[in-house]
């Protein structure tokens, strides 16, 4: 199966909004069930009276973490496609502290305030108004602190990668830590809140294996298995539909000609992405407008949505074909090779050859059009071979490209193209 479903194009943007609404209902339902519409109950967390916030949050984290680990491990989910908010260490420390202050002052966080307001709590509604006020203030200040807000970037990075330990080991450690925290929390509730261990708590005074204890044992057991089960990331092996690929390759449906691509670029079409797989130096010397430079070895990174149209551009047909096969086997649906590569682009688009004098009018008209196209891309037509001034023996000078703009500060280290819209919270 191909999950995340959305990233594999199983449904479109419109449907994703319905999915969002349904998932939101589930989210709100369980927040309210947990009692998170009540600021007093949330704030009790910070006086060790009722540690529901910790219990709910870490049970949810552990459940989703263990579930995602195993679904990825058995190959149902491609974990590398699940969006990871990039880390900016210092702003996230400061933001976290501010959020903590806001939590104990206001009694809610953004999600719980929605539930609180929905169930009629006036303080929840006022809290939401406060959030809008905060946003307006932040919006005015942000342009002045944008640089700082993107300082200490670490990219999209997970703890296992940072500490260079196995993913499964960390899953197990987090499960154990959460279970330890639950027991400590119940102890603290008794110590500071005077609350006796009630039915449905881990420390309930019974020797029975209650349902909650069974849940704890199940999570610990799954965590223990994760310790030995290996990496959840999809390994380098992929299966391909050879019949499908051979049909596409045989019908040359996998190619785009230089002229066609030029027309698309002039028309301002933006439903495709040009991926240039040449060396960085060649790319810097000249590249197609809007092309991104990704080396062949880096193509496995999360390049784009699997449904996005990708046009591979290289000066070697062999390399382009290799990239085409690699991307197709990674699950990209619409991959094309710029036919003839950069050489064809130069010959056909940038420096088209003028027809010999006396050629039919049709050719002359066609050439006039191609001359305009060449000028559009900064090239110039070459004189016809039959004319008095033979074409220069050396390759004509390539149009200068503007130096690539410095990468925007919020871009990770991977060659991930800028997204149309932010995906985070």
């Amino acid at each position, binding site marked *: 199966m191909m999950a*995340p*479903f959305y990233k594999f194009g199983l449904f479109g943007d419109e449907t994703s*909004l319905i999915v969002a*609404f349904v*998932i*939101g*209902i589930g989210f*709100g339902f369980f927040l309210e*069930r947990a*009692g998170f519409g009540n*600021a*007093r109950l949330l*704030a*009790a967390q910070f*006086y060790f*009276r009722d540690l529901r916030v910790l*219990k*709910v*949050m870490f049970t949810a*984290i*552990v*459940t989703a973490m263990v579930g995602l680990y195993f679904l990825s491990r058995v190959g149902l989910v491609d974990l590398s*496609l*699940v969006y990871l*908010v*990039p880390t900016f260490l210092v*702003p996230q*420390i400061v933001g*976290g502290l*501010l*959020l903590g*202050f*806001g*939590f*104990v*002052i*206001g009694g809610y*966080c*953004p999600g719980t305030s929605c*539930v*609180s307001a929905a*169930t009629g709590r006036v303080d*929840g509604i006022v*809290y*939401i*108004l*406060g959030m809008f006020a905060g946003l307006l203030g*932040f919006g005015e200040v*942000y342009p002045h602190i944008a640089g700082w*807000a993107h300082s200490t970037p670490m990219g999209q*990075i*997970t703890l296992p990668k940072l500490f260079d330990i196995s993913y499964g080991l*960390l899953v197990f450690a987090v499960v154990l830590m959460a279970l330890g925290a639950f027991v400590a929390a119940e102890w603290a509730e008794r110590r500071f809140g005077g609350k006796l261990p009630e039915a*449905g708590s881990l420390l309930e005074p019974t020797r029975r294996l209650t349902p*909650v204890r069974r*849940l704890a044992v199940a999570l610990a057991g799954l965590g223990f298995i994760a310790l030995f089960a290996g990496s959840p990331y999809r390994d380098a092996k992929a299966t391909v539909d050879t019949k499908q690929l051979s049909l596409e390759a045989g019908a040359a449906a996998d190619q785009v000609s230089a002229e066609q691509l030029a027309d698309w670029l002039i028309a301002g079409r933006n439903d495709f992405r040009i991926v240039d797989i040449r060396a960085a130096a060649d790319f810097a010397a000249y590249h197609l407008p809007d092309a991104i430079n990704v080396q062949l070895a880096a193509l496995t990174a999360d390049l784009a949505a699997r449904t996005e149209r990708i046009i591979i551009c290289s000066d070697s047909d062999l390399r382009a074909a290799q990239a085409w096969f690699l991307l197709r086997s990674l699950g990209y649906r619409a991959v094309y090779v710029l036919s003839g590569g950069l050489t064809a682009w130069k010959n056909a688009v940038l420096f088209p050859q003028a027809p010999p004098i006396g050629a039919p009018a049709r050719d002359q008209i066609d050439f006039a059009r191609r001359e305009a196209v060449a000028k559009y891309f900064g090239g110039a037509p070459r004189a016809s071979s039959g004319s008095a001034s033979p074409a220069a023996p050396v390759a004509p000078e390539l149009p200068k490209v503007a130096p690539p703009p410095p990468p925007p500060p919020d871009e990770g280290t991977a060659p991930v193209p800028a997204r*149309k819209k*932010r995906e*985070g*919270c």
Partner: protein
Amino acid sequence: MNSPIETPPSTGIGGPGPELAVAGGQPGLPLAKPHMNPYWAGLGLGLVLLASFVIMGRGLGASGAFGTVTAVAMHAVAPAHAGQNVFYSSYFGDGSVNPLKDWLVFEVLGLFVGGLLSGALANRLRVTVEKGPRISTRGRLGFAFLGGAMMMIGAKLALGCTSGQALTGGALLNVGSWVFMMCVFGGAYALAWFMRKQWL
């Protein structure tokens, strides 16, 4: 807040036991059902989060939707200002899609509906103010406003709130999310003593 359906603020701590739910209470108003066991609520929440990962390849969120709504409102009131400001313009993408047709906006709409649904099923819908006995309603609402503003500034700096960072990033073992989560708890505990009059 002297609406006729006001209830004495629930103790919140522990909640009434199931046996209390049928005994007594205000006349004409069914007593609120006790809250769900936190571990089972957490399991449910975790499964919703897991579903979001599997279906969408992204986690839950909340604060982002408020940013989008604010940006759209600013664009409607002062389009020139919103266009110049990088904060607001970042919500508009490449302009090809209505910014309100956003995943998080629809998710947060569902969040309201889900909360309402659960609250209605448990008789927890009340027009009331949640606060401790030692603070005035006005004082509590003032702190709610201030807290909301601080929370949102923090969420924008941290690229997410308790939903998008702590919950989602926590389950993904995201480095920044775990640092963030520790700071949230640290900040709240550090300030808790000063805010005790509001809650205890």
